[in-house]
């Protein structure tokens, strides 16, 4: 089963919503952690995100869309990066999250990814409706 580990940076980063590339020491530790995930055969994908100050939010309310440029004053939690891992249980995902070299105040949130089989049949059927019909072919 797939889990996403979301890094929610704490401390100053959380307050300012602004950050540059992390310092060499932090990168070194994180690289080692990422290698451990790779060597254990569980890592599917990962990315570090640029700060909210360089991002934007599109919000939907009352039938209209509103674009707000970062940083976002009202945001309580901001995502700094993620790992997508493939493990056997939630416990295993939590164990991996607890090995992350997190800084003071950092939070790693562990969230399981929905599989198609998690949805009821009518939802699966609705998902199929939105897809292109498969090309017909006589070939084996």
């Amino acid at each position, binding site marked *: 089963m797939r889990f996403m580990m979301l890094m929610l940076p704490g401390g100053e980063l959380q307050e300012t919503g602004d950050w540059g590339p992390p310092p060499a020491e932090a990168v070194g530790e994180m690289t080692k952690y990422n290698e451990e995930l*790779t*060597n*254990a*055969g*569980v*890592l*599917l*994908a990962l990315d570090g995100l640029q700060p909210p100050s360089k991002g934007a939010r599109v919000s939907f309310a009352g039938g209209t869309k509103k674009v707000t440029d970062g940083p976002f004053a009202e945001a309580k939690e901001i995502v700094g990066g993620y790992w*997508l891992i*493939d*493990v*056997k*249980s*939630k*416990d*295993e995902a*939590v*164990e*991996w999250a607890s090995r992350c070299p997190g800084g003071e105040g950092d939070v790693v949130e562990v969230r399981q990814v929905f599989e*198609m089989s998690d949805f009821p*049949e009518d939802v699966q059927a609705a998902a*199929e409706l939105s*897809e*292109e019909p*498969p*090309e017909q*072919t*006589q*070939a*084996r």
Partner: protein
Amino acid sequence: MASDAVGGSIDAVWRIESPRLIAGLARLTGDVGVAEDLAQDALVAALEKWPQSGVPDNPGAWLMATAKHRAIDLFRRNERLARKQEELAHDVGLALAMDGADLDAALDDEIGDDLLALIFTCCHPVLSTDSRVTLTLRMLGGLTTEEIARSFLTAEPTIAQRIVRAKRTLGATRVPFEVPSGEELAERLPSVLGVVYLIFNEGYAATAGDDWMRPGLTDEALRLGRILAALAPDEPEVHGLLALMEIQASRMRARTDAVGNPVLLLDQDRSRWDPLLIRRGLAELDRAQQLGGGLGPYALQAAIAACHARARVADDTDWATIAALYDALAQLSPSPVVELNRAVAVSMAFGPAAGLELVDQLVGEPSLERYHLLPSVCGDLLAKLGRHDEARAEFERAASLTQNARERALLLERAAVSGGSG
């Protein structure tokens, strides 16, 4: 509830740490069987201790230190291994004196080699294929005897006995705990890759209906493949195998219809293919190609799978490249089944007459005599050429050979259609 939570954590720690633990202990003792027993002892100790004390900060180091203490006890009772004792006592002293993290760093360099040696030992040619698969799932996958038994629809005592016998064989034949090098590496790598691919296929071939009985064998194989790719990054076929598995696994959701019937590759709804796994597979194939030295059998199969993965719709498939890849595969590992696939690819690329020419050469091949796909492909090509009477005979012959009722009905239907228009 609290102890349940710790129980789950211990399972998770075991899954993550046990391969490294067993590998490190095998390096110390020179015996994989002894190493696994020691690791199990450490697990039992953790199950007793951790519910009260909580999971230690560095559970891997805790397990290793505990297992080494057991090893010393064992060695004291075992004269044959007496020489190792002093060395080990020193090591444990060192472990206890050092902070866990430093110990980890000190061991980091060796641990990769140890893990690789463990994989090669579990897949050693002195063992039967069944034993290789079982030991690999047990030692590298951290699966319990019960989980392995469930996966292979085998009784638990059978698996337990297989493990005991395999460990005894490794001990008795004095298989050295090491990563083979040079020519021996080239000789033994196919066995390792074969075991991983066999595990993959065991899960992949299971129909949706009994999937629940095979708890993620494909996932297990993918994980092993990814570990191998990290441990042996210079071996092109390791990346080739991983590429093949990633791309095949990407089609998992599209392989069966709503009622669980299989859907042929060209009829699959490609929007259900997993783009992440395709991307990973194509990247692994790139790595295999960049390493040079020509593509091996796994990389060639991955390259064929990649041709399908790259085609947005079935009609876009690059059949000429696929035909060329099958040609290369046929030269590397000749087999009538590969030839038959090549014939299909050639017919798709260059027309049914070209394909039929190749298929005709396979008629009379003893290993394909009872293989229903030969007359089935033959019938398909004949029908496309408008030779309906001959096509009908081939479809009827194919129907009489298949074991699958649904397929038989389909073939008889095609036979009937051919007769009507012929």
